[in-house]
Structure formats: structure tokens, C-alpha cells
């Protein structure tokens, strides 16, 4: 495995400071594996505690469609953002704003009887709105050099406020029936359409993160932004793209949300940003940047969803679910910190 051209440098292998890299590289994959085992454990536990009720096609479909599909779109974007050592608190508000724009557009174009052409236009308008907020976030973070926490805290308030101004605080109704019936609650091959869409987007961006230059630059910037700059990577441009992507995905989430609930749910989604962050972190992505996978995020998003669903089925008081998710999250971050310390001690 080691090609040494020059003899006399045999000490290279037995360098006292060099640790056996095999153990540590396994640890990298370990955190995602660990949370995956936790998820499997939960599934098994709930299946045993509620036989015939938890592990049914209906229930799995419900978990996927209700608690995972829409939030996963936010979490995919959030994965990219957190890998760059950034954060985006505005995703829930951008979701709502995009849904409002899409809803208003669809109502203006025809309301409940609108055909697919109009629906597509409305959806594009909504996604465009999400993209715009993402670009704004990116510009302020990359060019104006304002910390991501502050910028996205601002856009969290601004996007929600804008949505409330546009609607007067009143949810938009009269959403096209074709959208809500066919897409929102409709299925294809036994799987809800919104799950198909969410899964497709997740797989695509999982591949992008793992196998493309765009993904490589995301990791590089999160690991050492200054180094990336010095080798010629356009860091500012890339950051804008990452936040823009997150905004676009939040826009898509807003449209799917509109389809599923046939209303804009302005009062909801206020903790979606934290749920997305939790999913990303649970999945093994480090808040310090440079490390993370989409696969991990998918696992991470299922854990709280399965917990909530299982607790309701078992009749456990729902407050315990919040406690459980919180505990798992802290444990995951602690484990990540411990791992990081072990790695960086060279």
C-alpha cells in the first residue's frame, strides 16, 4: 500500500505521531451508522410494542408523507448550508412565503378550478420566491460578510412578516382542486406523490453532494474557506449558490405544503428550521462544517418522526416525545464533538 521510492525513509511509516488512520476513518462513518442503528432500534421496539399497528404500509406511508416529505426538502438544503459551516434559520418562513405567493398566483389565475398549466405557473412563482430569499441570504452572508445566524434570523422574520402582510394574516384558500387532490393527497404505485417528489430531490442532491465538484467545493469551504480561496475557488459565489439552493428547496416545500393542506398554514412551520437542523445534525453532519451526508440527514429526519408517531400509537403523553428527541440530539452532538476532538488531537 505504501510506495516508497527512496530507501532510508522507512521511518515514514513508523512516524511516532502518525495514528493508525484506519480506526479513525471508520469513526467518521460511525456516527451516521450509530444513528441508523438507533432508528432501526426504534422501529423494532415500536413494532414489538404495537404489533400490527406500527409497521403497516398505511402507517409508514403516513410517517413519510406527513412528517418527512416536506421537512426533508428543507433538511437537504440545510445539509449543504451546515457543511459550509453556515446555518439557515429562515427555511420555515420562506416555505410559508413561497406557499403564499404560489397560492395567491393560483387563486388569481383561476382558483379551485385551475388547470395544470396555471398550477405550474403558480408553483414556479412560489419556487422563484423561495429562490429569491435564498439569493438574498447568500448575498448578505457572502458579500456583506454578515454572520449566517444573523442574516437568516432577519430573513426568518422578514419572510414571515411579508407573508402576513400579503395575506393580512388570513390563510389563502380556494387552492386548485387538481393540485390538492392529485398531488397533495394522491398516490402513485401506493406511494404519495409528495413522497416521490421529495425522494427524487433528495437522491439527486445526495448525488450532487457526494460526486460533483459543487459538492466537493461545499465540503472544502466548510473545512477551510481560506484555503479554498487561496486555490482559486470562488467561495463567495459558491456560498450564494448554496443558500439559493436552500431557498429554492424551501420554495418547493411551500408548494407541496400548499398542495397537501389546501391552505398556506401561515401559523405553522415556526419550528421547522430547528427540526431541519436537528435532522441534519442527528445524521452526522458537523455544525463546524466540512463533514456530512444526505444519507445521514434522511436517517436523522426519520428519528423524531418515528418517535412522535410511535408515541401517539402507544398513547404516551406527547411531551415525552420532545424530551426524547432532545436527548437524542444532545447525545448525537456530544458524540460528534468527542469524535472531532479525537481526530484533531494530532
Amino acid at each position, binding site marked *: 500500500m505504501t510506495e516508497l521510492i527512496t530507501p532510508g525513509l522507512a521511518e515514514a511509516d513508523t512516524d511516532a505521531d502518525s495514528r493508525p488512520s484506519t480506526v479513525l476513518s471508520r469513526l467518521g462513518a460511525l456516527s451516521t451508522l450509530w444513528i441508523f442503528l438507533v432508528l432501526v432500534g426504534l422501529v423494532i421496539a415500536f413494532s414489538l410494542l404495537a404489533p400490527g399497528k406500527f409497521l403497516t404500509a398505511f*402507517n409508514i406511508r403516513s410517517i413519510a408523507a406527513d412528517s418527512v416529505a416536506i421537512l426533508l426538502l428543507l433538511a437537504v438544503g440545510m445539509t449543504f448550508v451546515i457543511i459550509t459551516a453556515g446555518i439557515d434559520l429562515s427555511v420555515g418562513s420562506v416555505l410559508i412565503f413561497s406557499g403564499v405567493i404560489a397560492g395567491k398566483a393560483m387563486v388569481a389565475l383561476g382558483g379551485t378550478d385551475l388547470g395544470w398549466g396555471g398550477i405550474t405557473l403558480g408553483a414556479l412563482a412560489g419556487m422563484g420566491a423561495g429562490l429569491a430569499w435564498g439569493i438574498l441570504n447568500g448575498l448578505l452572508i457572502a458579500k456583506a460578510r454578515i454572520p449566517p445566524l444573523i442574516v437568516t434570523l432577519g430573513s426568518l422574520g422578514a419572510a414571515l412578516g411579508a407573508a402576513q402582510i400579503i395575506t393580512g394574516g388570513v390563510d389563502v384558500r380556494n387552492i386548485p382542486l387538481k393540485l390538492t387532490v392529485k398531488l397533495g393527497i394522491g398516490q402513485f404505485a401506493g406511494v404519495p406523490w409528495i413522497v416521490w417528489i421529495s425522494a427524487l430531490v433528495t437522491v439527486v442532491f445526495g448525488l450532487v453532494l457526494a460526486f460533483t465538484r459543487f459538492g466537493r467545493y461545499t465540503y472544502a469551504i466548510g473545512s477551510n474557506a481560506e484555503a479554498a480561496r487561496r486555490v482559486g475557488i470562488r467561495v463567495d459565489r459558491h456560498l450564494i449558490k448554496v443558500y439559493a439552493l436552500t431557498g429554492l428547496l424551501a420554495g418547493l416545500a411551500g408548494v407541496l405544503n400548499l398542495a397537501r393542506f389546501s*391552505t398556506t*398554514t401561515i401559523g405553522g412551520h415556526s419550528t421547522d428550521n430547528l427540526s431541519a437542523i436537528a435532522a441534519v445534525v442527528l445524521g452526522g453532519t458537523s455544525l463546524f462544517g466540512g463533514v456530512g451526508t444526505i444519507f445521514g440527514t434522511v436517517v436523522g429526519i426519520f428519528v423524531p418522526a418515528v418517535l*412522535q408517531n410511535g408515541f401517539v400509537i402507544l398513547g404516551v403523553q406527547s411531551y415525552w416525545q420532545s424530551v426524547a428527541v432532545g436527548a437524542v440530539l444532545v447525545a448525537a452532538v456530544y458524540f460528534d464533538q468527542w469524535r472531532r476532538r479525537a481526530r484533531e488531537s494530532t
Partner: protein
Amino acid sequence: MRRRVLVAVSTLAVITTISACGSSDDGNSGGTSGGKKSLTLIQGTKADEFYVTMACGAQAAAQSLGVNLDVTGPEKFDAGQQVPIVNSVTAKKPDAVLIAPTDTKALIPPMTQMKSAGIKIVEVDTAVEDNSLSVAAISTDNLGGGTLAAQTLVKLVGGKGSVLVINVNPGISTTDARAKGFDDEIKKTSGITALPVEYTNDEPAKAAAIVSATLSKHPDLAGIFATNVLTAEGAATGLRAAGKQDQVKIVGFDAGPQQIQDLKSGVVQALIAQDPYGIGQKGVQTAVDALAGKDVQKQIQTELFAITKDNVDSPDAQKFIYKDKC
């Protein structure tokens, strides 16, 4: 990496096998055979004393009728949070469900699925637009409640001035009816101006902010009608903060412990109390009757009571006061 994928794929295979061998999908038969019937109450929101009292009444009825009752609800009055809970309850396959839907439209698909699963549904308090999904709907006569509130407020402000309705969110059947009842009654009353309705999204902080803003804009504000518990709480806070509790009269809807405090200390002048305890009781009773195959009344309305400082300690009023725990 390859090893991880292998583990993932094999585990997924195990799960699919278990689920395939497991139960049928869309579980069509309800809960236990023979044994005790199991019911679930899905509240509109966990934290509201109205729903807590409803759960108390439901628990009491469940105990006396010999059925199991689980209680669950979302943290916010939000369809997005309630829908996953509804679907989880459907997977649980209880015999009957009492539900307070948080949106007249968004809850229709999950409730339809629940009905197809063979679960009997009783709507409590709020309802969805499709009334074929439930066997019965039990609620307060909210329209009449709004009328009663208007009459009470008009008397309190001495027949003149501006009044403001602070509502929760449009699209909620109950609060919309209260606001409408109030509005219709005010329109009939000369000397009183109705200011445009404001919405709080069920957040007390928002209600307080609306009150402060209205006071600055309309100094002649004489009365406020707050259409539910959290809204009344917030409105009272807003008045206290502005020091206007003597000048502006509030009629609140719902009588939680904090509101009763406010009533006794003079911050709120009257409370239109619903009977959530009774709703809970009747809900369970109706569900049990439906499960036994008896005919049930499709629409059941419960009473209201106007509580003021004068009658608050009377046994009649005490029945209507909400609890924050059973």
C-alpha cells in the same frame, strides 16, 4: 462506504419482510375484539385550558362508562401539526375518535382515511366542511355565544363607543361563528361602532400587541370582545400594560383560571363560558352509543353562561369554569 450501504440495504430488506408478513394495510377492523372499547381524544391544542377541561370531562365519562381513553394533541392550533397525529391515531386503530379539527378543509383527507379504517368519529368543538365524516358533532352554540357577548358588552359600555373583536384565525368554525354572532348583534345596536376584526393566530402576545396598537389609533375604544382563552389573556395583558383596564371593558370567551382571576380583579368584565367539560362528556357518551349501534343525534349543542364578578362564586357559574388540570 460500501459496508454502510450493505447494512442499510439488508436492514431495509428485514423491515420490508416484517411489514409484509405483518398486518394488512389500511387496517380495517377497529381495535380489540370483545374487551374494553378504546377511544382517543385529539384536542385542537394541548395547552389550552378549554381542551384540558374537555379532556377532564371525557376522562370522567370514560371511567363511568368503562372504556379506555387516550388523549393527544398538537402543540399549536395548526393543521400541519395535527395531521400527523391524526394519521398516527388511525394507525393505532381505536374504536372511536373524538376530534377537534384545526382546519375546516385540511383535516378532511386524514379524517376520511380514519373513517375508511372503520373508526367512528365524533367532532367536538370545531368541525370540518364535510359533515358526512363524523357520526355526530358536539359544540357550543357559538353563534348564540357571540350574540350573548355582544349584548353583555353593550350593557357594560353603556351603549356607546367603539368596540373591537379580536379573533383567532379565519377558517375555524367556532370562533368564526362567535365573531359573526357578535357582529350581527352590534350592527343592530345603534350608538356602537364596530372596528375591523383583528386576528391573533392564537398567540397571546399578538393579542396584546393588537390592543396596544388599537388604543393608540382609536382612543375612544370602549369595549373588546376576545373570542377565545389565549386571546382574552393577551388582550387583558395589553390593557394592563397600557393602564387602560378601567377605561376599556373586555368580554372574553371562555373561562380559564387566569380569566377568572382577571374577572375577579376587574381586568375583564364578563366571560362567556362554554361547557368544555360537558362537550367532553357528551362526546364520549355519543361515541359509546354509536359503537353500540344506537342512533345518535347528528348535531348536539351545549350551553353557554355569562359569568360576571357578581355571579362568579355561584354554583351555576362554578360548573362552567375551566380547569388547567383535572
